[in-house]
Each structure stands twice: as structure tokens, then as C-alpha cells.
């Protein structure tokens, strides 16, 4: 199964990409997808404390299970947050 991942704002600038596609066996959690993304883009590491997630345009938590064709968005803090520390 594949999941489309979208990057915005500081995450888009740091990784240099605005979207990518992840391929999995089974139905991973958002947390598992985030672990994989950190391996592919080590610059994401410091954002673990503050990134939130949306699947198909709805906010979800890290336990949410992904399904084939889902759109996973990495949401850097909307309300101020840890971007300052990782500047």
C-alpha cells in the first residue's frame, strides 16, 4: 500500500520536498510512518516534539492507522511552538 506525504512551511524548506510517497506492507500507524520519514529525512528529527498530523485533511493522533491511498500531512506548529528551538 502507498501513502502520499505532504510537507509544509519549515518542514518543506528543511527537507527540500513538498511531497513524497511511502510504501508499506500492512497498515502502519502514523507513528510508524513518521519513524520512516525521519530515517529518510534526518532533518525532521528535532521536530518530533512539535509536529502534528492530518490524514485526509483531518487531524489525527500518532496511533491512527493508515490505509492505501491516504494523504498524510505533516503539520508544523500552527500555534507557535518548537520551531524556535530548532532554528
Amino acid at each position, binding site marked *: 500500500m502507498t501513502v502520499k506525504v505532504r510537507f509544509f512551511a519549515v518542514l518543506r524548506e528543511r527537507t527540500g520536498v513538498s511531497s513524497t510517497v511511502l510504501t508499506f506492507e500492512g497498515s502502519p500507524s502514523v507513528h510508524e510512518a513518521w519513524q520512516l520519514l525521519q530515517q529518510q529525512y534526518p532533518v525532521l528529527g528535532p521536530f518530533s516534539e512539535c509536529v502534528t498530523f492530518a490524514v485526509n485533511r483531518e487531524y489525527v493522533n500518532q496511533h491512527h492507522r493508515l490505509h492505501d491511498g491516504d494523504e498524510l*500531512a505533516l503539520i508544523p506548529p*500552527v*500555534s507557535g511552538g518548537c*520551531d524556535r528551538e530548532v532554528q
Partner: protein
Amino acid sequence: MEQTRLVARILHNPIDLGEMLAMVSDPSCGATVLFVGSTRDHNEGRQVLELYYEAYEEMARKEMERIAQSALAQWNLGKIAVAHRLGHVPLGEASVAVAVSAPHRSEAFTAARYVIDELKKTVPIWKKEVFEGGQVWIGLQSGSGGPK
């Protein structure tokens, strides 16, 4: 259909405030409140040179609609219009606007305040401030005072 009583827009050009007011005009409503958030020349004591807004557009529009729906469900209102501008926004120009009409002013004020507060909490829009010697991405909620 509540949908006909609200307009939520993501714009890549200036927000027309007169149009915002016209969109919520309603003969049964004696009160209209318009909130305008505009870019400031200073933030946290540093001179801001340029400002850019970026959004997860499809989700941002959906969240804006959800918030406006929630306001229409909570108070006796006429119409709601909400708009956010993206891209480069010259200093002093409007980046966000909320217009609410209601039969009575109390509801118009309360609902306008609710919509802008919620918008800044949850809508996936980010601001890049360019200043002398650097730049920073900040969230909407920190728009007035910078990131905590």
C-alpha cells in the same frame, strides 16, 4: 443549508474588505462585525522586511468552513465570510478577515471573536517572517506576539 450562509476563501491576492461586508449583508441583520488582521512592521522588537503565508490549502479551507459552521450553529447569526491571503503580503495589508452579520450586535461580536480565535488555533496556515539577518516560520496564533 448552512452552506449558503457562509463563504470561506483562500486568496492569492488582496482581500477586498468591501466585498467581505457585502457578502454578509442581510436585511434582517442590524449588526455587522468585521475583523481584519494585518501584517505589522515589527515583531518581537525586530523590523520585519517581508512576510509570506503558506497553507495546506484544501485542509485550511475545510477547517475555515468547519469553524464558520460551528459559529452558525451556536449563535443567532445572518451570514459569515472568512478569508485568508497567501503568498507575499506587503506590510500593513490584510492577511486575514472575518465578517459576521447578526440581528443583534452581541452575537455578531461573540461569533466574530470565536471564528478568528479558532482559526488561529487550528487552521493549517503558516507565516514566514523575513527580517534583517534571518527568517523564521511561525504559526498563526503567534501572529501578534511571535512564537513563545
